[in-house]
């Protein structure tokens, strides 16, 4: 068990170092950092001084080590466009993105699992077929098109919900939240559903497939023989046994939720990290791109690690296998 954890930790560190190397190469070799930081009227001598001060003449391994050390402390340099520390910019945008991602993940789980259970138990019901057909369309259409469709229907036509921004936010000092105001909550609905739709259909199909599989298993027949109620069988026994893949997929998808937030945030002008990253890509603002890459990588690696560890908790077979080796 401990050997397993240690091995996964080492893997995680290696992945992070590879990503850091990529980010470093981007920062160092895409364009000249000095040119980006100073104005055109800066003299060559001043440029050289800045180059010296930033250590850009040092040997590459030393520069890379410094880059990693700085990144570990949360120092990603200064944005070319905004002339502000990248860490501050990202930190200011983090709450918006996290609230959006978590809301959409909750939506995907709370709607996807019941729909999956329903379609798995009532395979041939018309409603189940409708769910499946809609989910196929949902998987096929690009996120931004779905978002625009929602805006068109719910914001332009019905005028129920706002089409852009976060609404009123409350500043808690360390965190700005839109969850405490009515307009903030209303503004959250459309982006969260847009972002969560793909995950929802994925979870639904997964739960459905697993339910179909599990309901055929012997232990379910045994439950029936024991005279358990249908409810106890479906939710107590069958659903529980479908949860391992659901945990994995949801966990792994949490990362892509945050990545796809780039698109959703653009459609809804949601002031999160994704929008910041996109502006950085448009303007080739390498420090922000590098920092975002590192941040997302750290998130992915952490999620993968947690999912692997959760596996061990949920599925005793893995625990036993780990002990045997």
């Amino acid at each position, binding site marked *: 068990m401990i050997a397993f954890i240690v091995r996964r930790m080492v893997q995680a560190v290696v992945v992070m170092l590879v990503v850091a190397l990529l980010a470093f190469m*981007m920062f160092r070799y*895409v364009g000249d950092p000095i040119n980006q930081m100073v104005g055109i009227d800066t003299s060559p001598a001043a440029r050289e001084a800045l180059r010296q001060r930033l250590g850009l003449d040092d040997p590459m391994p030393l520069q890379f080590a410094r880059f990693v050390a700085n990144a570990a402390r949360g120092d990603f340099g200064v944005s070319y466009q905004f002339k502000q520390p990248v860490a501050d910019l990202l930190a200011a945008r983090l709450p918006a993105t996290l609230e959006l991602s978590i809301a959409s993940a909750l939506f995907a789980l709370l709607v996807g699992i019941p729909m999956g259970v329903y379609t798995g138990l009532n395979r041939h019901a018309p409603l189940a077929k409708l769910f499946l057909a809609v989910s196929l369309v949902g998987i*096929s259409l690009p996120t931004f*098109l779905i978002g625009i469709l929602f805006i068109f229907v719910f914001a332009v036509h019905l005028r129920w919900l706002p089409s852009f921004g976060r609404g009123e936010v409350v500043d808690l000092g360390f965190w700005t939240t839109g969850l405490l105001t009515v307009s903030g909550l209303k503004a959250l609905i459309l982006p969260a559903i847009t972002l969560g739709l793909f995950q929802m259909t994925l979870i639904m199909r997964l739960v459905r497939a697993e339910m179909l599989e599990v309901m055929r298993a012997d232990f379910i027949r045994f439950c029936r023989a024991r005279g358990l109620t249908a409810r106890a069988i479906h939710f107590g026994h069958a659903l529980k046994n479908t949860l391992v893949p659901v945990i994995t997929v949801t966990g792994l998808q949490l990362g892509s939720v945050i990545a796809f937030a780039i698109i959703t945030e653009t459609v809804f002008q949601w002031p999160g990290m994704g929008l910041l990253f*996109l502006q950085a890509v448009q303007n080739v603002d*390498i420090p922000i791109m590098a920092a975002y890459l590192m941040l997302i990588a750290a998130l992915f690696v952490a999620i993968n690690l947690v999912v692997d560890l959760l596996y061990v908790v949920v599925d005793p077979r893995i625990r036993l296998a780990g002990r045997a080796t």
Partner: protein
Amino acid sequence: MSELPAVAPRGRLADSDLLAAFLRSRVAMLAALATLLIFAAAAFAPLIAPHDPYDLASLSLLDSLTPPAWRAGGTTTYLLGTDDQGRDLLSALLYGTRISLAVGFASVTFAAVLGISLGLVAGYVGGVVDAVIMRIADVQLTFPAILIALLIDGTVRGLLPGLTREESAFGVLVLSIGLSFWVQYARTVRGSTLVEASKEYVLAARLIGLSPVTIMARHILPNVLGPVLVIAAINLALAIITEATLSFLGVGMPPTQPSLGMLIRVGQDYLFSGEWWIIVFPGAMLAILVLSVNLLGDFLRDALNPKLR
């Protein structure tokens, strides 16, 4: 199976089983029809399109935001209406589909060639080369393709500051989409290469002294291509979506050579002012295109997968 090592995958593709399954599936036939129509419209766009959307001189701002022909104020000159610059939407749509498909095909081809080559080398050579290629694939697979495409897009444009969007957009798109989709091919090909490399015909080829490159390209490659074709079919829809997304986000095709994604981006600004046609037609076109290519890919995958028969 080992007695008949060289069953060409092409023969299996054209097998009557596939055709029979196709004729039985109404969805597949409908999807194929829609795909063919759209492909043809895109291929012959210069012949069909009533106007040349790239000819800036022919654009007239007086004609801008004309509604479709069947609405009040519309004219038959512009069947589907015009956009904010007076560009004929039907022509822009045809040319836009052409660009979207061109980027899609080019990037799928690029990804497939890259992935197949790396997969072959990893599977056949093995050792350190294999480990390095597959670790890179593992790391890349953890990230969503769209994020990788965005990063490569930004980086490449940073490396080529001298080029204008018009000159570089196509290449940058193909490069970034291709580089974000190669992993699947590499993994599949590596897997089948490992199986093939242990077979007797490969041993025989090595015994008569053929070079590794010849063995990989002439002998193993034809035997591992089958599954790759299915991946390519499914990836085409993904590539089209990725291109549309990148263009929609403003880092893809320039406004002067709009792809479907760029047309939708332009149309989004007019969502609130009532000029719905600017966004609805490109949006519907993209949706139908992606849906039919997807359905066709799914059909191919199911029909060629003996486990599901």
